[in-house]
């Protein structure tokens, strides 16, 4: 993790092989986008809408949604912000799998069939692809997602070895998009389970050598609705757009609770 920067000067000029121009070959193709709509101001029941669109090689599902919203039907409603997978706004169910619309390239999906887009499951749908995120953030807040260190504040930084830092690196990547929690069949059942995202964020502090409140978080997650409801279905790990090994993190928390009790 430290800095062995390469000191060797690279060549002033190299022969560029006829490299594959990833961005170059932009081909057009047609898709059918099928979106589950819901708007209680219009009608009580959800319905499906379908659009045929012509898209390009590097377009993502988000581009297709934008194309509909901007050119065809302005009432189509979804959250989005950064559009490159780091803000976590546009988690949705695409062809039955939770993903970020901005990280899912159309060309990677089967475009011969309609691309089916729905809101993430398990949270109340507010309108089209927008769900109520409050229950999700409530669980996050409950695990005390902040560093607690009771020792006197040093003047400089708190020392932490690269190995100690590496220990919780994976779980610092979470962007709170809810793709994991809303892919969990246990969470779907009653919404009471803390859910993978909350546990991941607890993990990030439990295994941070600078934090003192690991015990309290373990106690919280030892709850009836805590880690023991995890059934290791790995849906969360598969859904995570950041590639966090979510199930592994949950398992490590389980082990920590066990070891602490023994």
């Amino acid at each position: 993790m430290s800095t062995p920067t390469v000191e060797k000067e690279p060549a002033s000029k190299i022969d560029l092989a006829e490299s594959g121009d990833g961005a170059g070959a932009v081909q057009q193709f047609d898709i059918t986008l099928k979106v589950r709509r819901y708007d209680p101001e219009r009608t009580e029941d959800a319905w499906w809408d379908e659009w045929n669109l012509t898209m390009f090689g590097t377009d993502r599902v988000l581009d297709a949604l934008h194309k509909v919203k901007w050119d065809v039907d302005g009432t189509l409603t979804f959250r989005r912000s950064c559009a490159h997978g780091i803000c976590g706004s546009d988690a949705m169910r695409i062809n039955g799998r939770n993903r970020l619309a901005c990280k899912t390239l159309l060309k990677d999906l089967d475009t011969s069939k309609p691309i089916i887009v729905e809101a993430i499951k398990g949270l109340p749908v507010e309108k089209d692809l927008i769900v109520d995120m409050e229950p999700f953030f409530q669980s996050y807040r409950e695990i005390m997602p902040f560093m607690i260190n009771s020792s006197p504040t040093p003047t400089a930084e708190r020392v932490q070895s690269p190995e100690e830092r590496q220990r919780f690196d994976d779980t610092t990547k979470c962007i709170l998009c809810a793709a994991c929690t809303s892919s969990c069949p246990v969470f779907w059942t009653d919404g009471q389970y803390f859910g993978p995202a909350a546990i991941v964020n607890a993990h990030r502090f439990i295994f941070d050598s600078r934090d003192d409140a690991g015990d309290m978080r373990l106690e919280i997650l030892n709850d009836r609705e805590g880690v023991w409801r995890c059934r290791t279905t790995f849906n969360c790990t598969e859904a995570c757009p950041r590639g966090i090994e979510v199930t592994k993190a949950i398992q490590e928390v389980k082990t920590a609770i066990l070891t602490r009790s023994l």
Partner: protein
Amino acid sequence: MTATNSEAVLPAQGIEAPRSGRIDPKYLRSSASSGSFEMVAWVFMRVSGAALVVLIFVHLFSNLMVGEGIHQIDFAFVAGKWANPVWQFWDLTMLWLAMLHGTNGMRTIINDYAEKDSTRLWLKSILYLACAVIIILGTLVIFTFEPCLLDDAGNLMDYSPSFCESVVN
């Protein structure tokens, strides 16, 4: 989104705000549970599961795979097995572990899918009752079992296991 500190709260216009400072009650956790029951249950499922794999596989193998398999099973076969304390103990352990393992599994399934608290309570009551009845019944059967039944005349009945003859005579 708690204290609004409102000075002039007028009635809301139009539709109600979907998230006016509240969380759908469905998602509120009643209260933190105390103790480590879930953890103990979780560990038990793993330990008993591993044990049951051995217990049941041997059980299946000895009952169905060796000798005449399914055809050998009758009163005499069972009686013959339980005459041996090892098998008695074996089946007793299997009964207890399997019932507890299964009941706990059913409990989590009820917790997951029963929507109303009252349904949940009902289902769980039935489950626990059934579990208790079966365990007690099974235990009694194993311990009070008399392999060598005699008929009114004091002779061994036909389905008695062969070792009875040595016992009786």
